[in-house]
């Protein structure tokens, strides 16, 4: 009902037609987020996702009847204890009578959810898809959910920070990075968040000294270098070329998207720079025709729940040679006004509704190339990368979006 134009032939947009056997170009034409906060006690989970979805529809100037399918994602059911929440959320997301899919890939789920939705359009299964991810951490207990008392195992840790901290130390040892770099990332991201009205943490009095003076939780990770717990949802409207032609606002075009996974633990696993992350990035760059990501990508939203993951991912994603990522951070390259801004929105360090965090990265990358990021806009951003990872550094999902439609 929403596809007035045959997407295989395309409307008169002046663009080269895709061959009938090729993929349909995919555009982001609507983005909606809730104001992320510690606790949204005024809404149910349904009310929370509804708010983000309606904002995305409003941005795209579409209605529920324009949507052909809904693809949602969240972190484990265990976190909020709502089993198969997609069943209960169908009404709130206008999915009655339509296909509805739920995706789950741990912390990377927001990204992989968007990619599943993207593929439905690229494969011409649907013309316009609503994709959404959320977490209501105030109704959840992730630390408990991640630390179940499994029989015969020795309880040693609580939560994710202790899991990742040894890998941060390994990165510092491997690269010789000075121990000041983590605080620089946190200070940057929290300042960036002040320019993003949807960010959870708005620490107006943040200083580098305050970050450096915050207590070590899981040494070498400090309190201020750790993500918060947030309630929030993020939604996007993805559409085909015909849909993009009708869009009232600029579209962000998908130029490459990929997912990769690997086991949590195996002999030879490189926790500092996992192979699956490298492979995922390489696939995205190949699809997008990127030879030198450092020069050709204008802005990056990467999944940094603990500050040291910025330099680690800079290397893993090919923005810096091995051992050199921290130098980009230290020299200010990743600042909002730097040469390669990273986490302009404030990132996961400022906002972490777990299931939504990956989609927020993807959506913020799209906002940048649409020129709609407001105060945290990078001037002239034409190509931006959205990145998410999850589990024990074992699931990766990324997309590269551009201001121009793909040419091939």
């Amino acid at each position, binding site marked *: 009902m929403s596809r007035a134009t045959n997407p295989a032939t395309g409307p008169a947009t002046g663009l080269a037609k895709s061959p009938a056997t090729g993929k349909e170009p995919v555009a982001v034409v609507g983005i909606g987020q809730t104001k992320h906060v510690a606790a949204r006690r005024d809404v149910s989970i349904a009310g929370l996702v509804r708010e983000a979805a309606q904002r995305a529809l409003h941005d795209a100037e579409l209605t529920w009847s324009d949507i052909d399918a809904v693809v949602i994602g969240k972190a484990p059911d265990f976190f909020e204890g709502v089993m198969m929440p997609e069943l209960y959320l169908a009404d709130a997301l*206008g999915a009655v009578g339509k296909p509805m899919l739920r995706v789950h890939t741990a912390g990377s789920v927001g990204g992989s959810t968007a990619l599943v939705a993207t593929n439905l359009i690229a494969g011409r299964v649907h013309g316009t898809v609503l994709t959404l991810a959320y977490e209501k951490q*105030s109704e959840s207990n992730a630390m408990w959910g991640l630390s179940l008392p499994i029989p015969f195992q020795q309880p040693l840790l609580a939560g994710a920070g202790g899991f990742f901290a040894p890998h941060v130390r390994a990165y510092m040892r491997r690269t010789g990075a000075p121990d000041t770099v983590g605080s620089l990332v946190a200070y940057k991201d929290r300042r960036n968040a002040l320019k993003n009205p949807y960010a959870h943490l708005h620490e107006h009095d943040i200083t580098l000294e305050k970050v450096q003076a915050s207590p070590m939780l899981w040494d070498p990770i400090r309190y201020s270098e750790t993500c918060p717990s947030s309630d929030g949802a993020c939604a996007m409207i993805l559409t085909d070329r015909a849909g993009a032609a009708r869009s009232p606002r600029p579209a962000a075009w998908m130029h490459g998207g990929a997912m990769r996974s690997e086991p949590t633990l195996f002999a030879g696993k490189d926790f500092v720079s996992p192979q699956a992350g490298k492979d995922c990035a390489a696939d995205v760059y190949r699809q997008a025709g990127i030879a030198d990501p450092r020069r050709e990508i204008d802005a990056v939203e990467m999944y940094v729940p603990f500050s040291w993951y910025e330099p680690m991912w800079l290397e893993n994603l090919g923005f810096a040679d091995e051992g050199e990522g921290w130098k980009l951070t230290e020299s200010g390259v990743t600042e909002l006004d730097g040469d390669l801004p990273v986490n302009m929105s404030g990132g996961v360090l400022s906002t972490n509704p777990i299931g939504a965090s990956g989609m927020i990265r993807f959506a913020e990358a799209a906002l940048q190339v649409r020129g709609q990021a407001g105060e945290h806009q990078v001037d002239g951003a034409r190509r931006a990368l959205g990145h998410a990872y999850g589990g024990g550094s074992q699931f990766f999902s990324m997309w590269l979006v551009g201001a121009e439609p793909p040419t091939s």
Partner: protein
Amino acid sequence: MPEVLKAPLVVEFPFTRSLGPVQSAFLTGLRERVVLGVRTADGRTLVPPVEYDPVTSRELSELVEVAATGTVTTWAWNHEPRRGQPLDRPFAWVLVRLDGADTALLHALDVPGGPDSVHTGLRVRVRWAGERSGAITDIACFEPYEPATDETFAPGGHDGRFEDLVTGIVAPARLDYTYSPGRAQTAYIQALAERRVVGERCPSCRKVYVPPRGACPTCGVATAERVEVGPRGTVTTYCIVNIKAKNLDIEVPYVYAHIALDGADLALHGRIAGIPYDQVRMGLRVEPVWSDEGGHPDHYRPTGEPDADYETYKELV
């Protein structure tokens, strides 16, 4: 082959729920012995009420009172009620369309006469709980009743506005599992009782997995060849934990380390003690300190050997 270990695993958590405006009114109503439905654009009344119209997707907000009497639309007999169910004696699960509603509500029906006295079309009424807090359990259950021959339904007319709204509930969840770590980990745990650490070697890549999982995650083949490793090993990396976990009986700060036991091809995880926490370092040589209760080492302590050279363990970090 020895018996594979098994143990109960009970997962329990009191989840909190924010209700949103519609569920908030519904549950507050139950506290006040008022059953509310929500009116859709096409004039139907949905009980229990929902926030969004299942047909049009529109937001719903017009609350209307329905009766505390209704008709069973379908049912199933529950022979053996389980923990947490509405009644502790056999009862019928029923869908009840309350008078004034267009949809049916799921609840329990208390019928002393057993399943033979339940049928579709049975007239039933709410049995209110003595103490009500704003929860679905404020309806203790339904019970059959004999309607008067001239029974008519007179709606109460409540508009769903209350003082002192219930805005959240606690929804305790409990899952009962029987957990088994499987053959490979059973053998590993049984060897620990003899203070030996036994891994398994992959027949394909020859890597030694400790603890073993019974298969190599890289090659995808079963592992069976047992290999004793350690007991000494090298700290490959670590963190100092400064926050006390509720479910963990370990004083902070403590050192959580990855330890590559000699002969193992990946590190296992353990606690380091017998050395001030701020003197632990990568490359530290350690050995297990066994607990009197058997099982896993309580912690690892320095052996006094010189630190391992980074080059010797960097592939295991």
